[in-house]
């Protein structure tokens, strides 16, 4: 099914574009009306009445990108570098909605600090005019409910 391989390709491509820091190309993978969610609890169902590590619509995603590019972002005088590994992509289709799930590990280096994030990605995809786009991305981190240092890059 071409949709299935296209869905898998988007998951890998998204990871690569984030690692490259190619924000414009990355955002172009997302539908206009999109959502980016990293919950603070496993099985969290409610982003409106429970806090989240990230809960952003396109407006906030674009604002984050503007800050990442800003010359006066003091925390970024030393840039952040990431490397992601995606594995075990499964694609399901139900009621016209395509969902891709995958496991990931993300290595992040910021100056001398190295840290790792990992968990489960859920991409909900929709068929737009020019191909599949990401409607929503949910990141269930293994360390969703622990104490974190600041996080600046999309996970």
């Amino acid at each position: 099914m071409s949709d299935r391989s296209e869905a898998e390709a988007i998951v890998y491509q998204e990871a690569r574009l984030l690692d490259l820091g190619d924000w414009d190309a990355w955002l172009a993978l997302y539908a206009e009306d999109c959502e980016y969610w990293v919950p603070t609890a496993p099985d969290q169902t409610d982003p409106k009445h429970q806090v989240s590590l990230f809960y952003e619509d396109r407006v906030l995603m674009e604002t984050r990108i503007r800050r990442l590019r800003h010359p006066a972002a003091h925390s970024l005088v030393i840039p952040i570098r990431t490397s992601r590994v995606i594995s075990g992509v499964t694609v399901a289709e139900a009621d016209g909605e395509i969902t891709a799930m995958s496991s990931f590990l993300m290595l992040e280096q910021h100056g001398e600090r190295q840290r790792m994030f990992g968990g489960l990605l859920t991409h909900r995809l929709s068929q737009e005019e020019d191909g599949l786009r990401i409607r929503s991305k949910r990141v269930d981190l293994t360390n969703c409910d622990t104490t974190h240092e600041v996080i600046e890059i999309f996970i």
Partner: protein
Amino acid sequence: MQAPSPNGHDDIAELIRPAAVHRRVYTDPEIFALERERLFGRAWLYVGHESQVANKGDFFTTELAGQPVIMVRHSDGAVHVLFNRCGHRGAKVVGERSGRTQAFVCSYHAWSFDTDGTLRHVPAHEGPRAGDFDMRDPCFSMRKLPRCESYRGFVFASLAAEGPDLRSYLGGVLARIDDMVNRAPDDELEVAGGCHKIVQNSNWKIFLENTHDGLHPMSTHKSSIDASRRQGRTLTGPPPFALNVIMANNQTLENMDKLSVHAFDWGHSYMAGFRNPRGEDDVFKEYVAALEAKKGAKRAEEILSINCHNAVFYPNASVQPSFLQMRVIFPISVDRTRIEMWFFRLKGAPEALFERTITYANVVHSPSSLIRPDDVASYDRIQAGLAADGGDWVGQHRDLDRDEILNDGRRSSAISDLSMRNQYRAWLRFMSEDQAA
């Protein structure tokens, strides 16, 4: 010149000048250890909110001065704060963050305690083999902290048996708790929405000194201010609440100078607000209607007119009353600090209003906040820079001797260093060896 050692009253006093503090207060592990004993060991510390233990048997575990404690609702309705420590071999009894129980049972030898810490059952203790063991002896219980008091649901405890009562201790800053609770149509708050948890590689006092720092937003937060303003200009309608929260940091020094800071004994203070806590949307209007229905239009307007940016309950808590946010400080070491952020629902307000509190929480207090990384970069740089022998003294001189003296404290502008000098006045009072709290 030899720097003063921290042993004894006079040496501690040498670390604090009227308009500067010695850098060792931020960098010396011995001073950190002394703070645990004399400051956190004597002050009233915020523990949690009564709504976190709403039902009999509910418990919530946390740390005070690095010691594990449990806040629990006993069967008679009273709230106790116990040391999380078995009376037998000293094991931490409760492992979970929170829950409900009829008894605390230690996993090691099954010693069983009532929820007020009283030892109730010890397996196989009868007879001569137990020696002089008397299980009624309070030394075998899960002991309560020496003092525990609550103000309008906010529970505080102290590791010291002596000292001013909670109301005397908090003084003028108590009004900021009233500010929060009065906003609820039902005059009650409820902790809700989870908790943000962040760790910073800097001394806890650097964070507290930033709370009323009106000088820093324009420069520190330039990247997030510019990003949110430019984003706002691309939108056809008004900016969403989240963007307005970020943009509001764009305050000129002239604007900040017009905002006041009030400082009180024991290190507390509050600062006037620069973000608009009122909404123009239907949800906020529904909330105002609910508030007016319970309290009348005049009283509702009085309550809603108060705009406080934040308040410090020295030494371990800070609230943002208009947006129902609370920060609790957990110093880990001299250069590492953990902060938990908790949020409140206004009882009697429409549930949709709570969504504003959660949005604010994510934008400002999430580890991924666009605002936070630039603050943390500053704190990290202070901690790193102070390691350099480029000067022993850290200045707090702005508007020195220009404080307005009030009946219950002092007032100055949000670009003065009043709140910092006020915190160190309290610090010195606690840290001086021969003074009881």
